[in-house]
């Protein structure tokens, strides 16, 4: 129920919102979370548990409440897995609890609870033994498991991401975080302070701590982000900040982690019933949302915080039926206030079990003696309608773990504490074991000044720290019960006995235990269960918690919406200077690496294949033109230019005549082919060379690196983007080129290089023959190359695309690096051994190639053909070649040549099977085979008469 307005509440009662939950209409106020609004309306069951479908309600109410997860089905597409404890309710929302069969009130799957005996941890590993039954199990489990439903109609939502910078990032705006931020800002740092809650202040907002930290922080020069959490820590203080609408990648000079601690639920039978909640949830509901769900309360406590919560309950008129304290004797605080009010206090006691009524809500508890972690005799049975628990915390160390902080286990405080922090990272507050206001405030100030000293290299004196007097964490708030339902992990319905079974089965290491039991692998990622799981394992294996250790904390800290991660999805793509020309010619574009290239040029009434065939035949019979501007285009200039190339490429270039070009293959140190291209000599000290389309940036970077190491007298220039390039090819290419240039084409030999004006543009021309016909590769400045293209097109040259080029080059047996080669291809098994020149002092990969060449090859590149009368579907690239039942090779390139009238291809194959004419068996994906024969390459014009222009 909603109580009267109060100063501490953060709801706006002037603005009401209407929403539905499970089909029923409810009202709430602006500022309400879904959970607070439902509870204010008296809704008892807010969700169902993952495995046994037990009724659940609010538990932690702290951004990781595993019990209340809903789908919003109100929009065009629904939003799954909303955390109701922190998501603000909005007008018009239509909400549905996740993971129910027939609704949250009468979930039919709750019958699974009766079979829990047959569903211990790891039961699915055992159930899947029979292979034949696997499909049945899979179908059943896929139906039964999972939380919200993903709506596959959801469009891609482009969400901005931004980069942020600051001197000091403070994560957590509670007492210590505020103190740290103030200390840092007041000493001149640019401070960013974030908090996952909608307001700063942390527990200041719902406890009775009198201080002015919030107002001071608001007034200071601090950038404050609320509703924002640090999802992950990365190298050099790079922290992913997740806001409601987007993600910020924050680079901080220093990081102060003041992320506080998670309240930990004590374990006893039926500790998951609705209206059994942690003290923080109880206080936040009461003070921030003015929601009271308990009238007759039992408090289960083991620290001062529990008594503070009990005092608040009294202030709000809640009838405290009993306070059950796990501790006894000297550990107890002064209890005069409660004794004076005749509130029964059961020290050295525990709740042995809770009972539920018809409405599934808790209706009473059994209080037993509690000695040395074991329940003893029954002390009392007390009726109540709610249980408030405060027996301990687990520090939120996730970010610090990700930052490689070394931890120690503090026995007095029974918690892990940062021991050795990375340079420039600081922690404070509850993380350091400080729980009282004074100790947290001082600890925060120390962290803030440490940050200042780090950034400014100053020596500001640190205030003196205060000793912590509280012992906030009970070392064993766990009570075993013979009938089970003692939940350790609420996400996965893991009970105490599940841990025992796992350890008995040998999973006695914290990482193994986690994976076998799935402890901490649910939506809350162990925030409420890892510490108890660790304690259970420690006790079962007779180890200390420190010896057991923690599991690895990886990003992300909280669930992060996929749209935040995806951001805008930057996907750089490049277009050549002729891109618009291709569009005008109806090009169908494809991505080649990150380049948009014409696959082919569509023609009305012509199929794709026929269009490609026509382009191929145009090159063979007349003249074709292709945009090869994607090639890498580099220059090396200087007295040592030739020497440089001799070291990089496997062939020789010192003797290359000016005005001539030569094929070049580059290897890495292991002798593997990494790139190829044509190298032209412009002058004695000046070379211009191409690289593969995808290799330009990498090769330029590598060559620049090598040039620095070698210190040769030459410079490397990358002209890839500054030059466009065209390949004009076909028997009539010389004729058409002659129309637009004064260059003497009769004095232009194969593999010659010339500079001349073409269509009024100063061009670089190489007479090369990649596509197997008389051809000219014409390079021109990017902003002018269209003039050359237009001249040829207007004179009748047929544009051809990448697909036609692939056919043409395959006919010639020309390889494509990366397609016909792989990470093991050397010049010797890639068919370019003829280019290797071992008779020079050095080239990269030379030493490896010497070794490789002294050993038998395991694979070679060979050509093959299918019979001309073969009419079946062609094999595809990567189809395997099988010999005597074993894999003997694979296809690297294959196509049907319209010129030759048959299917041709290249394959990697064992050398003993690569004899010309040898029959090979190619296996299709469906397991059938087709026969082919090894053939000599080039398949077309083996004498190269056409490309030399002498045919």
């Amino acid at each position, binding site marked *: 129920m909603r109580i009267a307005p109060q100063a501490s509440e953060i709801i706006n009662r002037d603005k009401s919102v209407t929403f539905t939950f499970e089909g029923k209409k409810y009202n709430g106020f602006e500022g309400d979370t879904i959970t607070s609004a439902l509870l204010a309306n008296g809704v008892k069951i807010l969700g169902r548990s993952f495995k046994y479908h037990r009724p659940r309600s609010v538990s932690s109410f702290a951004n990781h409440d595993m019990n209340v997860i809903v789908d919003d089905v109100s929009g065009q597409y629904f939003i799954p897995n909303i955390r109701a404890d922190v998501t603000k309710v909005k007008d018009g929302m239509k909400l549905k609890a996740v993971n129910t069969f027939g609704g949250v009130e009468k979930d039919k799957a709750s019958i699974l609870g009766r079979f829990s005996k047959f569903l211990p941890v790891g039961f699915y590993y055992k159930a899947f033994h029979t292979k034949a039954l696997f499909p049945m199990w899979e179908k059943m489990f896929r139906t039964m498991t999972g939380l919200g439903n993903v709506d596959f109609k959801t469009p891609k939502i*482009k969400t901005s991401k931004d980069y942020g910078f600051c001197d000091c990032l403070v994560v957590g705006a509670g007492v210590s975080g505020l103190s740290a931020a103030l200390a840092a800002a007041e000493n001149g740092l640019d401070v960013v302070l974030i908090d996952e809650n909608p307001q700063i202040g942390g527990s200041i907002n719902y406890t009775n701590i009198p201080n002015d930290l919030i107002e001071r922080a608001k007034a200071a020069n601090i950038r404050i982000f609320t509703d924002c959490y640090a999802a992950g820590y990365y190298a050099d203080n790079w922290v992913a900040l997740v806001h409601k609408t987007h993600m910020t990648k924050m680079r901080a000079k220093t990081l102060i982690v003041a992320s506080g601690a998670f309240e930990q639920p004590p374990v006893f039978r039926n500790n998951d019933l609705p209206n059994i909640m942690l003290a923080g949830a109880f206080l936040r509901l009461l003070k921030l949302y003015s929601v009271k769900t308990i009238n007759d309360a039992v408090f289960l406590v083991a620290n001062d915080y529990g008594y503070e919560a009990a005092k608040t309950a009294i202030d709000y008129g809640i009838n405290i039926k009993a306070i059950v304290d796990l501790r006894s004797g000297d550990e107890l605080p002064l209890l005069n206030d409660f004794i004076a009010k005749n509130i029964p206090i059961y020290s050295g006691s525990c709740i042995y079990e809770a009972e539920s009524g018809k409405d599934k809500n808790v209706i009473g508890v059994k209080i037993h003696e509690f000695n040395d972690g074991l329940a003893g005799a029954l002390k009392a049975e007390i009726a109540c309608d709610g249980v408030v628990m405060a027996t301990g915390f687990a520090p939120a160390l996730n970010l610090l773990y990700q930052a490689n902080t070394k931890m120690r286990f503090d026995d007095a405080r029974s918690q892990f504490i940062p021991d050795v922090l990375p340079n420039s990272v600081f922690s404070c507050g509850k993380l350091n074991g400080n729980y009282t206001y004074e100790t947290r405030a001082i600890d925060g100030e120390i962290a803030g000044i440490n940050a200042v000293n780090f950034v400014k290299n100053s020596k500001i004196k640190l205030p003196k720290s205060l000793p912590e007097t509280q012992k906030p964490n009970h070392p064993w708030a766990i009570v075993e019960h013979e009938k089970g339902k003692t939940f350790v992990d609420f996400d996965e319905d893991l009970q105490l006995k599940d841990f025992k079974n796992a350890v008995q089965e040998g999973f006695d290491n914290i990482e193994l235990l986690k994976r076998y039991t799935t402890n901490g692998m649910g939506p809350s990622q162990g925030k409420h269960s890892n510490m108890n799981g660790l304690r259970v394992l420690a006790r079962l294996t007779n180890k200390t918690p420190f010896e057991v250790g923690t599991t690895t904390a990886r990003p992300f800290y909280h669930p992060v919406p996929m749209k935040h991660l995806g951001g805008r999805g930057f996907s750089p793509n490049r277009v050549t200077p002729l*891109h618009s020309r291709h569009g005008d010619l109806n090009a169908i574009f494809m991505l080649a690496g990150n380049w948009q290239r014409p696959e082919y040029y569509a023609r009305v009434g012509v199929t794709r294949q026929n269009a490609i065939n026509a382009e191929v035949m145009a090159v063979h019979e007349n003249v074709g033109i292709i945009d090869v501007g994607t090639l890498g285009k580099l220059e090396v200039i200087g007295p040592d230019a030739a020497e440089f190339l001799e070291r990089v490429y496997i062939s020789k270039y010192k003797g290359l005549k000016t005005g001539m070009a030569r094929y070049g293959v580059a290897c890495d140190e292991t002798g593997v082919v990494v790139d190829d291209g044509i190298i032209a000599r412009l002058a004695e000290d000046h070379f211009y060379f191409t690289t593969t389309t995808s290799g330009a940036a990498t090769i330029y970077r590598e060559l620049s690196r090598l040039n620095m190491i070698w210190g040769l007298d030459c410079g490397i220039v990358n*002209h890839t983007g*500054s030059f466009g390039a065209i390949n004009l090819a076909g028997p009539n290419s010389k004729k058409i080129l002659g129309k637009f240039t004064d260059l003497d084409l009769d004095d232009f030999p194969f593999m010659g290089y010339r500079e001349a004006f073409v269509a009024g543009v100063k061009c670089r021309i190489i007479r090369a023959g990649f596509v197997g016909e008389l051809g000219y590769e014409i390079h021109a400045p990017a902003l002018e190359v269209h003039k050359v293209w237009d001249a040829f097109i207007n004179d009748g040259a047929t544009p051809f695309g990448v697909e036609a080029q692939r056919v043409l080059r395959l006919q010639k047996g020309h390889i494509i690096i990366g397609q016909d080669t792989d990470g093991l291809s050397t010049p010797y098994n890639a068919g370019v051994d003829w280019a290797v020149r071992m008779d020079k002092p050095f080239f990269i990969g030379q030493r490896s190639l010497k070794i490789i060449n002294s050993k038998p090859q395991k694979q070679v590149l060979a050509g093959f053909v299918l019979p001309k009368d073969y009419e079946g579907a062609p094999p595809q690239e990567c189809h395997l070649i099988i010999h005597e039942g074993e894999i003997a090779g694979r296809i690297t390139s294959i196509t049907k040549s319209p010129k030759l009238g048959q299917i041709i291809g290249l394959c990697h194959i064992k050398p003993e099977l690569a004899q010309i004419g040898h029959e090979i068996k190619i296996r299709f994906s469906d397991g059938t085979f087709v026969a082919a024969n090894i053939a000599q390459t080039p398949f077309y014009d083996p004498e190269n008469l056409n490309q030399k222009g002498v045919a």
Partner: protein
Amino acid sequence: MISPLSFENITTTEFAKEGLIIKDISNAEKFGIKGKGAEEFLKSQGVKLPEKYNTAIIDNDKIIMRLGISEYLLEGVGVSRFYDLPKPTQAYQVLRQDCCLLLEGEAIYKILSQSCAIDFVKANAKDLPLFLTSMVGVGVTILLSEEAGLPKVRIYCDPTYGAYLFKTLLEIGGDL
């Protein structure tokens, strides 16, 4: 207009909204040179050079950007004539056909923060700092300056990335 942006038939070359202008200014003449002899060549042509690398100077409507210890990019009327002049040893000219986008206005910091991992806010625009960095996945050179108290950046990139960069910045700018 022939420009790297027209590589993809982009018809809009200027975008404006409150506090933000994005313009294609690729057509300005450019000249690039690198190597140990670059400084000697430029000085012989009377070009003033920035003393610090990764900074620029503006001299009579010409922008002289020092991209590294011995690499320069010049922009302005008449600079392309340097291509035809003989160069001293160890001076290697670089054909610059860069795409250049100009961003002006108070909102540019928001665009930059969404596209580039550099803290431009803390940079001193009066120093004309140059940043050789990556923006939305593209290698770029960014020149930060200010005019009448308003920030301004020129973003240079390989022209083949120009259309992508322009469209991406327009998308971000449009969503602000």
